[in-house]
């Protein structure tokens, strides 16, 4: 089916280019049938890319090694679960995934807007298909997933072991969904700017896509952090890696938009700012894809490296230049309809929060790209690393958390001093109480962390206060039981309370980050069995080594695992038993690498020994030194090389001879592996006791829950539209009543 796949890419390219031309021709000449045809081109592209994706997935599932991408990134022994995920471990599959997701989201938004803002949608169609043209072209001409070989290998290279992790099934599609969803508001912003119809309708129609992109990107970022923590074996969850930053920047930008767009919806303000944020988020999404796919900056995501830089830079230049040009052209139409009433208002808090978020984006952008900037200026590529981020990001994060607490408890437009006192008293008192308790407890060595704990408490108490007051207000009207009133007040105000819950999740997450990064106890120790090391009061004893040689279904070597069992105790009481493993994978056949050496020469990954609870994680990873084995490995290489050289080509080609040699090699490798247990040598462990790490994952789950709540459709609002029309018509003489009807219709239970 490879020829079908290749043809589908070309066909997709033709359809995308046709759709661009048809949409623009239709809207410019007033021929709606051409606009409809352009929209159908998007649907068709989605259909074609779906078929292409199915063909690629089927090739992976069948281990069809005539596809180059399949033998390079999978093998017959790759578990089916990971075969499904293997396409996006490759450059070629990633590009196809990008364009497939883009075509699906584009089809969805164009279907939803098929009878609305059709002139804006026509230009948006052209922009979305422009992105599709770019990515289909890359997939068709630069990194085609459907290229084949006439001499397929009997076995594939397999999936990079680092990607053999459950989060890798979801992490990349989440990020790519986030990136591709960001192109939707981008495209509609361009359409609105071109047509000059810069009212609220295009924003109302695409807001959910912005929120969905925020949710997908955020989930992808957290899953990446979880993967880093449990798979990479360095003991952290966030390394300020360029690819991590590439996802974080558009997420911060779209977070700013999700807040500031409310000001435009309510007050008609910040139009230039909002359209800039939408265009900026879309551009950062492409920049993120570029960073992952180009390999331009050194990253732990080295499996994504390639040379796609020039086309991406051209696209980014077009997006930035075109976006700025359109905003300048339409600057008069983007004038604000109102002014800020007071600095003591939610609008002002949102505005300040936007500045903080964009400050973070600027800092992250500058430091991430500093190696390239320094190379351009001085000729030397200087990487400044994670410490460069902290002096800027930590204070900004503190301000952000403070604002996340103030936002939910301050009213729109203006507030009085008395109301401020009433609403802030409890949360501020709780924050201060937290600070006092921690100081009294002697936790005074990390001022930024202390500030984060106090501010986080302020946010949490503020959100709880809002939930309680909301439920109480509903109870006053309905006399419902408190839990029911709480559920119903949240259900009927999903956007508001979903947002509050997100803020609570953010506070919990950042408390976890502050605690785990400020109060981590870490030691690298070298132990032999029976020896112990102490970390933050925990005695960790290396009980015994373990080893395991894994083979695949054909009997070929899959991995060699050297591990350890460690017992953790505190004050003489047993706490837990940890098991950690370092797995070595064989390299593909390489000239110059001996037949035994090759068993250890591929990539390696770690299984972390982890005990986690609400107060702390005890984390360990083994890093066995292979040097004591090296002499025996070299000896084995020489024995088998001599054996191979002693064979005639005819003998070497005989299956029985080859099988015998393979069996002997397996025996030798098993013997080597047993050495780790029978003659244990000192091995290095990284031992970490880290407080409140679990809070990070709990906070993230709460954020996702709150995001889903805010994203959920609001059927009551849809119902109220029809009721509103009848209300207006039935009370033409009374100007107050229709509004009362609307408000009541939305307030009261259906």
């Amino acid at each position, binding site marked *: 089916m490879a020829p079908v796949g290749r043809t589908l890419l070309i066909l997709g390219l033709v359809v995308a280019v046709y759709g661009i031309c048809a949409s623009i021709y239709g809207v410019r000449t007033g021929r709606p049938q051409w606009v409809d045809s352009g929209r159908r081109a998007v649907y068709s592209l989605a259909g074609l890319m779906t078929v292409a994706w199915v063909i690629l997935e089927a090739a992976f599932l069948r281990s069809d090694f005539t596809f180059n991408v399949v033998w390079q990134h999978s093998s017959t022994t790759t578990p089916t679960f990971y075969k499904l995920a293997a396409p996006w471990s490759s450059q070629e599959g990633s590009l196809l995934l990008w364009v497939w997701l883009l075509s699906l989201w584009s089809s969805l938004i164009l279907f939803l807007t098929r009878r609305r803002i059709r002139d804006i949608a026509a230009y948006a169609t052209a922009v979305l298909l422009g992105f599709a043209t770019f990515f289909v072209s890359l997939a068709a001409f630069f990194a085609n997933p459907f290229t084949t070989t006439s001499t397929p290998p009997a076995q594939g290279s397999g999936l990079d072991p680092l990607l053999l992790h459950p989060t890798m099934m979801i992490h990349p599609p989440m990020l790519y969904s986030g990136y591709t969803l960001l192109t939707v508001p981008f495209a509609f912003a361009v359409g609105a700017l071109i047509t000059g119809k810069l009212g609220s309708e295009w924003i109302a129609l695409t807001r959910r896509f912005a929120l969905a992109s925020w949710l997908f990107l955020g989930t992808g970022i957290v899953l990446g952090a979880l993967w880093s923590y449990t798979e990479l074996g360095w003991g952290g969850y966030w390394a300020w890696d360029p690819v991590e930053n590439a996802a974080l920047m558009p997420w911060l930008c779209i977070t700013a938009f999700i807040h500031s767009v409310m000001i435009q*919806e309510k007050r008609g303000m910040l139009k230039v700012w909002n359209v800039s944020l939408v265009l900026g988020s879309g551009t950062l999404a492409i920049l993120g894809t570029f960073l992952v796919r180009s390999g331009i900056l050194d990253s732990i995501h080295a499996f994504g490296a390639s040379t796609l830089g020039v086309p991406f830079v051209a696209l980014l230049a077009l997006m930035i230049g075109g976006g700025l040009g359109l905003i300048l052209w339409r600057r008069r139409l983007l004038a604000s309809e109102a002014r800020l009433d007071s600095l003591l208002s939610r609008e002002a808090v949102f505005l300040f929060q936007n500045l903080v978020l964009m400050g973070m984006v600027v800092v992250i952008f500058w430091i991430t790209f500093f190696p390239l900037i320094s190379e351009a200026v001085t000729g030397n590529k200087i990487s400044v690393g994670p410490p460069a981020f902290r002096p800027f990001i930590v204070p900004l994060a503190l301000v952000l958390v403070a604002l996340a607490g103030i936002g939910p408890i301050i*009213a729109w437009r203006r*507030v009085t001093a008395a109301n401020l006192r009433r609403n802030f008293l409890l949360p501020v008192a709780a924050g201060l109480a937290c600070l006092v308790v921690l100081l009294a407890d002697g936790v005074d060595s990390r001022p930024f962390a202390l500030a984060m704990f106090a501010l986080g408490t302020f946010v949490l108490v503020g959100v709880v206060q809002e939930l309680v*007051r909301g439920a109480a207000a509903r109870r006053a009207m309905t006399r419902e039981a408190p839990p029911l009133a709480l559920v119903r007040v949240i259900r009927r105000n999903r956007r508001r309370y979903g947002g509050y819950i997100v803020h609570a999740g953010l506070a919990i997450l950042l408390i976890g980050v502050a605690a785990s990064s400020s109060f981590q106890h870490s030691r690298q120790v070298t132990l032999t069995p029976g020896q112990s090391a102490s970390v933050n009061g925990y005695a960790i004893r290396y009980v015994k080594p373990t080893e395991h040689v894994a083979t695949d279904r054909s009997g070929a070597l899959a991995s060699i695992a050297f591990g350890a069992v460690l017992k953790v105790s505190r004050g003489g009481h047993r706490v837990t038993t940890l098991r950690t493993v370092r797995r070595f994978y064989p390299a593909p056949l390489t000239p110059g690498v001996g037949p035994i050496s090759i068993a250890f020469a591929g990539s390696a990954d770690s299984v972390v020994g982890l005990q986690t609870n609400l107060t702390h994680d005890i984390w360990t990873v083994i890093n066995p030194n292979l040097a004591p084995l090296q002499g025996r490995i070299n000896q084995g290489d020489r024995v088998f090389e001599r054996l191979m050289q002693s064979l005639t080509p005819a003998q070497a080609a005989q299956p029985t001879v080859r099988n015998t040699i393979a069996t002997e090699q397996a025996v030798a490798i098993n013997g080597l592996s047993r050495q780790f247990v029978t003659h244990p040598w000192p091995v290095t462990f990284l031992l970490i006791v880290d407080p409140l790490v679990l809070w990070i994952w709990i906070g993230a789950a709460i954020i996702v829950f709150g995001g889903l709540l805010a994203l959920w459709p609001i059927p009551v609002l849809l119902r109220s539209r029809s009721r509103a029309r009848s209300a207006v018509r039935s009370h033409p003489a009374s100007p107050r009543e229709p509004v009362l009807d*609307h408000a009541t219709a*939305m*307030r009261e239970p259906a």
Partner: protein
Amino acid sequence: MDLVVIMVLLGLVVVFVSAPLRRVAPSVGLPPEMTTGDPEPELRELETARDAKLRELRDAELDHRTGKLSDQDYQALDASLRAEAIEILRSMDQARDHAEHPG
């Protein structure tokens, strides 16, 4: 087999994408939604503004009930929002009348 699949997909795409172009004598000129002077897009813009204003009314009421707005502030804000909402509803009526009785 591959050729058959490709031809079938090509045929489906051509038929599907060209369907709007094969409809009977579509007149030149944008449909009502795509004409700037037509009330439909204006009406939809007004509907969006109305929904936002109603949300704002509702938010203000919830802010009042949960103690974020004093009685005095709420009454002033509510009156102002209601006036803005009524203005939008009137504009919607006018847009509807204009659509039903053009000229």
